[in-house]
């Protein structure tokens, strides 16, 4: 269903827009034909800090949207939270600055062959890849309902044009500053029932994905989630980004989220194994 993107390129790309939106920066890059191969769920990896940087690792960002033609040729859009040194450097750049980008990387979201009712669940900037996904699902005739959650209103990323591509949008914040007070999983059961959801797509912090997967299991629904683990390389060569995932035979293996993910079948992931190798994992001592 899902497959790894083998069309990764490395290139110097130009920033053509950088706008603050709530707690995030919406950034647009002119990427040439890198855009052609980008699918919802893919990500890019960007060098940060400039040529004298003490930060030697790339930062990964989910592709929010990509477009292969337009005023600037192919473009890729990202939603970046200015969090630590690397992302602050990136969001501090100006139009016409260049960055070194590798992409598109990773496994994209699988699209059902038949029209189905899809529920998309995003946390924080995790909403980013869901809007592009929503568009594709709509094109395939799916019903698309979306839930976005965050701690506070400013951390909900839900641009107008994005809202148009969904049938319904429900927002939750932990402090109630906008939408429903609470977590995405508080409203999920009701929405699943109301919209007769058949598949769940999710992207966001790992604890949220775990909770979403728990509900998906309860309702017996397919669940594709885009996980986020610390990545040193993003291209499958370092083995830092692993998480325990069951293979086709049910064997738990430490699986790379950059190349065998980030999109994974939620039911295969062994959640909450934080800082431990789950018992029975292949090769565990």
């Amino acid at each position, binding site marked *: 269903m899902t497959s790894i993107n083998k069309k*990764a390129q490395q290139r110097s790309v130009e920033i053509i827009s950088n706008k603050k939106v709530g707690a995030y920066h919406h950034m647009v890059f002119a990427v040439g034909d890198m855009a052609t191969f980008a699918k919802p769920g893919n990500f890019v990896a960007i*060098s940060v800090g400039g040529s004298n940087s003490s*930060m*030697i690792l790339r930062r990964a960002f989910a592709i929010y949207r990509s477009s292969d033609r337009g005023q600037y040729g192919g473009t890729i859009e990202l939603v970046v939270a200015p969090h630590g040194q690397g992302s602050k450097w990136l969001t501090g750049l100006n139009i016409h600055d260049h960055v070194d980008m*590798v992409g598109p990387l990773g496994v994209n979201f699988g699209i059902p062959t038949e029209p189905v009712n899809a529920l998309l669940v995003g946390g924080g900037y995790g909403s980013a890849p869901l809007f592009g996904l929503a568009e594709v699902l709509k094109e395939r005739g799916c019903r698309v309902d979306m839930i976005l959650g965050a701690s506070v209103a400013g951390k909900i990323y839900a641009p107008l044009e994005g809202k148009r591509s969904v049938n319904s949008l429900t927002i939750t914040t932990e402090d109630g500053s906008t939408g429903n007070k609470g977590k995405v999983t508080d409203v999920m059961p009701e929405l699943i029932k109301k919209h007769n959801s058949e598949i769940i797509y999710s992207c966001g912090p790992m604890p949220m994905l775990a909770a979403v997967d728990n509900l998906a299991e309860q309702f017996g629904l397919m669940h594709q989630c885009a996980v986020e683990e610390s990545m040193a*390389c993003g291209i499958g060569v370092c*083995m830092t980004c692993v998480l325990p995932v069951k293979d086709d035979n049910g064997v738990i293996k*430490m699986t790379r989220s950059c190349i065998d993910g980030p999109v994974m079948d939620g039911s295969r992931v062994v959640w909450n194994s934080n800082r431990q*190798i789950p018992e029975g994992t292949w*090769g565990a001592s």
Partner: protein
Amino acid sequence: MIDPSNFDMRVKFGHKYFDSPVFTASGCAGSGKELSQFFSLTELGAVVTKSIALKPRSGRPTPRMAETPSGMLNSIGLQGPGIDQFLEDDIPWLVANQARIIVSISGETVDDYASLARRLRVVPGLSGIEVNISCPNVENRGLVFACDPVASRDVIEAVRRNIGGELPIIAKLSPDVTDIVEIAGEVISAGADGLALINTLLGMVIDIDKQRPKLAGKTGGLSGPAIRPVAVRAIYQVHSKFKNVPILGMGGVTSGKDALEMIFAGASAVSVGTANFGNPTAAIKVKREIRELLMERGFNSISEAVGVAHNE
């Protein structure tokens, strides 16, 4: 200046020649396949595969990495499929894609290394064995082999006995020792044809929010440009003493300049490790720049440049 195509990039370990002095470092190039979408592996001197053990290993839990100033810590814990599946899956693919292959092996006992060597002896298509002795010796309170001259010697002897005379043995040493020249001496007299210098330095990062070591495995291996001066020093010290033993230099090589430091200090070739993470085509860049920089300086071959920093 000579024609670039006449510049002699060949290097030799044991009886084997390699067409390029730039290798990928063990554990930093996956199974080779992953990098091949960025360049042809035939551009490399050799792919040094991720250290393989006898049995499958899950490796350590996550977090497995932490970025540090001009470096990073990793604590992968030698995750891998074990020798059987490795020989079934990875080697045939590399052979089919005409990559030169150096297999890195790791063990928990001297016997493990011996068994691995026996398995590899009969495998066609290999160009060398890199022996990663920066592994805990379960028979000696988990003391890392590479930190103990006797254990280091035992491992290399066992590999030498079991691999036969064909394949060059490259012993990979740890910098976390009081006297790396002593360890080098032991493994050379035990039969190593070359030395890989250096493995990572033991380091730690504390997550000041969680108030715990950032890595699940607590300590990790420090790599990247931060450690380059330590690598250059180790190469220089060892080459001073053992001029005829080829050294595969590594530790923070990201550019041709970095590689030249190591070559002038005494390395015959370099491995690119952590730099692959920041730049998937780092090895190709390093190779191109080595040639350019050496030609600018009037050299006609890599071998002429090896160790020149020792001249009076």
